[in-house]
C-alpha cells in the first residue's frame, strides 16, 4: 500500500500541473543550455582532432631546390624520421568573375593513391584527377559557386591563363575552410602543373618525426638535423614550415569558442541554481499551510523535508528527461553547424558518459542542493508560525517602505500597492531580482561581446586606408609599376609595401616558420612601411612608430611581438629573411586585428634585410577614388590588363572586399554562439519571473480575497500583479546593465586574448540595452499575466478558505 504522503506528493504534482510544468521547464531550460554547450564542446573537441589527425599531418614541410624519389627514400632512413613524402604547392590566381580574381593554392600530389602525410579524402568525381583537371576542396565550392564538371580559369605565376576542369571534390580537413580564408584549394598532378606553365619538379619535402611528434622543440631538433644532412647532400634548404603539432589551423579559434561557451555554461549553472531557488521558494509558499497542518497532526521536520526533497528529485528527473535529449540534440546540431563552417566531417555525434553525468547532476543535484536549505527551514518552522494568518501578515521590514509609499500622492494606489508588494518578501524579491539581473547581464554581455568584436573588426577595416593590395610573382621596378597603375582611371594613389616571409633567428641558419601549408595561419612577414604613409593606422600598444632614418628600427604587431616576449622597447631582436640574419631594434608594438604576425621596417631597411633592390617592389597598396566592390572589381581588371600588357604577372590581389569576407568569416561562429547563449539566458530569466510572480500570487491569495471582499475588481487585481512583475523587471534591468560591464570585460578579455592576443574593447551595446528593456517589459507582462489572471479569477470564498 502506497503511503498517503507519497500519494499527496503525486497528487500535488497533478493538481498544480501548470506550475510543476513551469518548474520542470525552467530546470529543463538550464539543463538544455548547459547540455547544448557541453555536447557541442565534446563533439567539436573530439571531431576537430579526429579530422585533423586523420590526415596524418606532416610534422614539417621543407622547401628544397628539388625533391625526387631517391631523396624521399633516403630521408625515410634518416634518424628520427618516421616518414617522408614529396609534394609541391603553387599559389596561382583563379578568375571567379570577369576581371575578378581570387587566390588558388594548387597542391601538387605525385601519387594520389599512395598519399602518406597530410592526406585528404575523395568526396566525388574522379580519383585521381585526370591530367589537365583539378580536384577542388569541397569547401571552395560555395565560395566560387562551382561544381564538378565546371571549367575554371587559372593562371600560375609563370603560366598563361588556362581553362581547367574540376574533375572531382575532395575533403581536406587539414586546411582552414576556403570561405574563411578567401582562398581556393585545389589538387593536381605534376603533369597538370607542367601544363599550367610551371615546372613539374617537386620542391616540398613533407616529413613526420618518430619521437615526440607533438613536441615542437623535438620536431625542430629533428628537422635541424635533417636540414644539416640535406645541405651536406647538396640540397638548398629554403623555408621550413613547422605547423603547431596536432593542432587544426582553427584550433585556437575553436578553443576560443569553446572557452567562451564553457564560461557561459558556468554562468548558466549559476542562473539555474538561482532559478531553482526561486522555484522552490514558490513551491514552498504554495504548500506551507499544508506543511503546518501536517506538522500539527504529527509530521516531523525530517519527514516533511524528505517529502519535498523527493518532489524536487521528481521534478529534476522530469527536467533532465526533457532537457538532456533536447540539449544534446541542440548541441549535436550546433556542433554540426560549426563543423560545417570549419569544413569538418562529424564522424560521430556520440557523447561521452560524463556529459550525461554532468547533466544529470545539474538537473537533479543542483536543485536538491539549492532546495535543501529553504525546505529544511520551512520544515523546521513552528506550526504557529506557519498557520498564523498566513498570507495577510505584515512583514516588519516592509512597513517602513509602505509608510514612505503612502506619502506619495501622485501615483495610483494600485501601483503603490504593487510597489509595496515587491518588497514584501525581501528574500524572494532579491532572488528574483538576482535571477533576472543575471539573465539580463548575460544577455547584454553576449551582445556587448558581439558588438566589441564587430567594432574591433570595423576598426581594423577603418585602419586600412587602401582598397587593393597587389603582390607580384617577382620583384618589379617600383617606378614602372607606379607609372602603369597610377595613370589608370579610378586610381588615386599607390604605395610600395614590400613583403617577405620572415623567420625567427636560429644559430644554425635555418629559416623555420610556424605555419601551415596554406602559408596563412601562423605566418610571419617582414614588410616595408613607407615613411609618412597614411594608408595604414595601427594603434600603438607600446613604444612608437619608426621615424625617417631609423634604419635599425622595427615595429611589430601584437602577433609578432608574441614571438619575442622578453624583448623590451629599445631592445634588439634578430630576424631571418631570405636566409639572411638582421638585427633590429624594437621601436614599438601596434595592434592589428586578424593580421598575421608582421614586422614593419623602413623601405631601405627592408631592401637590405630581404636583399632586394631598393628600386624594386613585390607588393603595392592602391587607393581608389571609389571604394565599393564594383569599383574595386573594375579597376582591378584594368590594372590586370595594363600590367599584363607590360608582361607583369600579379601573384595575388587582396581587395578590401576579400579582407572583409575573410574577417567576418572568422567571427561568424562566435556571433552565432553568443546570440544562441543570449536567447537561452532570456528564456531562463522570463521563466524565473513567471515562477516568482506565481509565488507572489500564492502567498497573497488571502490578501486578494480580502481585497475582493472589500470591493476590488478583477481588473484592479490583474493590474496590481502585472505592475509588480513589470516593476521587478525594470529594477532588474537597472541592475543588469552595470552588471554586464565587468562580465563583458572579462569575457572580452578572455576571447580577445585567445583570438587576437589583444582584449576586445568594452562596449555597452545600445541595441542590447534597448532589446533587453523591451524583452524584460514584454516578458514581465507575459510572465505576470497568467498568475495575475488566476488571482483575479479567485472568488472570495476560495481565497479565504485557502489551504
Amino acid at each position, binding site marked *: *500500500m502506497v*503511503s*498517503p*504522503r507519497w*500519494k*499527496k506528493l503525486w*497528487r*500535488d504534482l*497533478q*493538481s498544480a500541473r501548470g506550475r510543476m510544468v513551469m518548474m520542470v521547464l525552467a530546470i529543463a531550460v538550464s539543463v538544455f543550455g548547459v547540455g547544448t554547450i557541453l555536447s557541442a564542446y565534446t563533439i567539436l573537441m573530439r571531431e576537430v582532432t579526429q579530422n585533423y589527425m586523420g590526415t596524418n599531418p606532416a610534422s614539417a614541410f621543407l622547401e628544397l631546390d628539388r625533391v625526387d624519389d631517391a631523396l624521399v627514400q633516403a630521408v625515410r632512413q634518416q634518424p628520427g624520421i618516421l616518414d617522408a613524402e614529396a609534394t609541391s604547392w603553387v599559389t596561382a590566381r583563379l578568375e571567379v568573375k570577369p576581371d575578378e580574381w581570387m587566390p588558388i593554392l594548387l597542391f601538387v600530389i605525385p601519387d594520389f593513391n599512395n598519399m602518406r602525410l597530410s592526406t585528404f579524402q575523395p568526396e566525388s568525381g574522379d580519383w585521381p584527377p585526370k591530367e589537365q583537371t583539378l580536384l577542388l576542396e569541397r569547401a571552395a565550392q560555395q565560395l566560387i559557386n562551382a561544381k564538378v564538371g565546371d571549367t575554371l580559369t587559372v593562371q600560375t605565376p609563370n603560366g598563361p591563363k588556362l581553362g581547367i576542369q574540376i574533375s572531382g571534390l575532395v575533403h581536406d580537413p587539414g586546411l582552414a575552410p576556403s570561405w574563411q580564408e578567401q582562398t581556393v584549394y585545389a589538387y593536381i598532378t605534376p603533369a597538370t602543373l607542367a601544363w599550367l606553365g610551371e615546372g613539374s619538379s617537386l620542391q616540398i619535402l613533407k616529413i613526420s618525426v618518430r619521437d615526440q611528434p607533438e613536441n615542437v622543440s623535438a620536431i625542430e631538433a629533428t628537422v635541424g638535423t635533417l636540414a644539416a644532412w640535406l645541405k651536406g647532400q647538396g640540397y638548398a634548404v629554403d623555408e621550413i614550415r613547422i605547423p603547431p603539432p596536432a593542432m587544426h589551423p582553427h584550433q585556437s579559434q575553436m578553443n576560443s569558442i569553446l572557452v567562451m561557451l564553457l564560461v557561459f555554461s558556468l554562468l548558466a549553472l549559476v542562473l539555474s541554481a538561482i532559478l531553482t531557488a526561486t522555484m522552490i521558494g514558490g513551491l514552498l509558499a504554495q504548500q506551507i*499551510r*499544508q506543511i503546518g*497542518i*501536517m*506538522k*500539527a*497532526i*504529527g*509530521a*516531523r*521536520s525530517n*519527514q516533511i523535508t524528505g517529502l519535498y526533497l523527493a518532489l524536487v528529485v521528481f521534478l529534476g528527473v522530469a527536467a533532465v528527461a526533457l532537457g538532456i535529449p533536447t540539449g544534446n540534440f541542440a548541441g549535436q546540431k550546433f556542433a554540426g553547424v560549426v563543423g560545417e563552417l570549419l569544413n569538418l566531417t562529424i564522424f560521430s555525434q556520440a557523447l561521452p558518459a560524463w556529459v550525461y553525468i554532468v547533466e544529470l547532476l545539474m538537473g537533479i543535484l543542483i536543485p536538491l542542493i539549492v532546495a535543501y536549505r529553504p525546505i529544511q527551514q520551512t520544515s*523546521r518552522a*513552528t*506550526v*504557529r508560525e506557519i*498557520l498564523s494568518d498566513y498570507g495577510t501578515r505584515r512583514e516588519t521590514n516592509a512597513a517602513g517602505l509602505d509608510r514612505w509609499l503612502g506619502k506619495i500622492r501622485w501615483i495610483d494606489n494600485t501601483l503603490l500597492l504593487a510597489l509595496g508588494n515587491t518588497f514584501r518578501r525581501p528574500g524572494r524579491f532579491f532572488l528574483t531580482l538576482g535571477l533576472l539581473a543575471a539573465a539580463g547581464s548575460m544577455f547584454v554581455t553576449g551582445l556587448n561581446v558581439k558588438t566589441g568584436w564587430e567594432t574591433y573588426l570595423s576598426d581594423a577595416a577603418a585602419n586600412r586606408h587602401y582598397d587593393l593590395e597587389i603582390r607580384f610573382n617577382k620583384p618589379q621596378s617600383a617606378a614602372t609599376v607606379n607609372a602603369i597603375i597610377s595613370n589608370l582611371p579610378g586610381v588615386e594613389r599607390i604605395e610600395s609595401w614590400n613583403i617577405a616571409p620572415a623567420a625567427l633567428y636560429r644559430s644554425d641558419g635555418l629559416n623555420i616558420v610556424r605555419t601551415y601549408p596554406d602559408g596563412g595561419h601562423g605566418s610571419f612577414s617582414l614588410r616595408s612601411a613607407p615613411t609618412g604613409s597614411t594608408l595604414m593606422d595601427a594603434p600603438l600598444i607600446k613604444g612608437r612608430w619608426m621615424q625617417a632614418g631609423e634604419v635599425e628600427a622595427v615595429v611589430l604587431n601584437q602577433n609578432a611581438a608574441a614571438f619575442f616576449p622578453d624583448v623590451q622597447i629599445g631592445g634588439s631582436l634578430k630576424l631571418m629573411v631570405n636566409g639572411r640574419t638582421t638585427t633590429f631594434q624594437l621601436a614599438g608594438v601596434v595592434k592589428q586585428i586578424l593580421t598575421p604576425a608582421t614586422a614593419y621596417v623602413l623601405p631601405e631597411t627592408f631592401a637590405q634585410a630581404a636583399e632586394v633592390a631598393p628600386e624594386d617592389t613585390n607588393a603595392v597598396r592602391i587607393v581608389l577614388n571609389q571604394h565599393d566592390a564594383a569599383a574595386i572589381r573594375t579597376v582591378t581588371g584594368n590594372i590586370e590588363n595594363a600590367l599584363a600588357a607590360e608582361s607583369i604577372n600579379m601573384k595575388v590581389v587582396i581587395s578590401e572586399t576579400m579582407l572583409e569576407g575573410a574577417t567576418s568569416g572568422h567571427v561568424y561562429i562566435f556571433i552565432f554562439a553568443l546570440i544562441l547563449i543570449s536567447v537561452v539566458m532570456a528564456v531562463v530569466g522570463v521563466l524565473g519571473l513567471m515562477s516568482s510572480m506565481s509565488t507572489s500570487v500564492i502567498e497573497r491569495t488571502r490578501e486578494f480575497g480580502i481585497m475582493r471582499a472589500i470591493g476590488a475588481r478583477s481588473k484592479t487585481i490583474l493590474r496590481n500583479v502585472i505592475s509588480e512583475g513589470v516593476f521587478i523587471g525594470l529594477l532588474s534591468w537597472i541592475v543588469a546593465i552595470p552588471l554586464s560591464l565587468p562580465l563583458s570585460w572579462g569575457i572580452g578579455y578572455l576571447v580577445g586574448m585567445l583570438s587576437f592576443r589583444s582584449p576586445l574593447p568594452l562596449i555597452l551595446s545600445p541595441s542590447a540595452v534597448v532589446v533587453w528593456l523591451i524583452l524584460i517589459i514584454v516578458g514581465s507582462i507575459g510572465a505576470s499575466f497568467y498568475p495575475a489572471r488566476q488571482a483575479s479569477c479567485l472568488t472570495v470564498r476560495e481565497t479565504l*478558505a485557502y*489551504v
Partner: protein
Amino acid sequence: MIAQIQNHHRKFQEETIPVRESKLIELNGVTKAYTVGTGQFLALKGIDLEVNPGEFVAVVGKSGSGKSTLINMITGIDSPTSGEVFVAATPVHELNQEQLAVWRGKNIGIVFQFFQLLPTLTVAENIVLPMDFCNRYPPRERRQRAIALLEKVGIAEQADKLPADLSGGQQQRAAIARALANDPSLLIADEPTGNLDSQTSDAVMQLFANLAKEGKTVVMVTHERDLSRYFTRSILLSDGLIVANKEQKNG
C-alpha cells in the same frame, strides 16, 4: 471493530503516557507575551488550569481574550513565555519542535475551525496520514482503521472522496476522525463549529460529547454560548485571565 479500536486505545495509552496522573492537563502560571508594533502584548497572564481525564471543557471568551493562545500552549503549537505546561505529566514547555511533533502526533488530536484537510488526499487518506507520520499501526491495517473511524463519525461512505466534495459538516467529521487516527487521549478543537450551520454544529458537538463519554478528554475553544449544554466544564477567559471556571450541570 469498535472494540478492536478501544483495545488499541488502551494499549496505546499505556505505551505513550508514562505516568497516569489524575490531572491530564496542568498549567502553572502560564504567561504569553507577543511583541507588537506598540510594544509587548500579554495574551495570557499567569494562567493556572487543571483538566481531568474525560472532561469536555469549553474555553470561551471574546475575540482577543487569549482562547486560541491557551490551547496552543496545550498542544505545544506555541510555547509559554513563562510558566509550565504538563499534558499527561509530559512537560510540554520543555520539548523541542521535533519532540513536540512526535508527542503531538501520538497524544493529541487537533480539530481546526476550517477543517484543514489536505485537499489532494481522499478523506480516508487524510485519516491514514497521521498514522503514517507517527508510524502507528501496521500499514495494512491503517485504511481499515480509517474506515472504522469514519463509521464512528458517520461518514464512512465518503471515505474515497476528496474533501472538496464534502459538505462543511462532513469535512469537520472527517477532521475529527483524523484527530482520532492515532487514538490520542486528548482532543483539542479550535472553534470546530465556527464554520457550520446550527444543525450541523449540534451533530458535531454530539460527536465530541460522545467521545468525552468514551474517555477522551476534549478541550474546545468556542464563543457559541448555546452549546454550553454539551460541556462538563466551562472556562471563561478575558484579557488573558481566567475569570470564571465552572462545572456544567448538564455536561
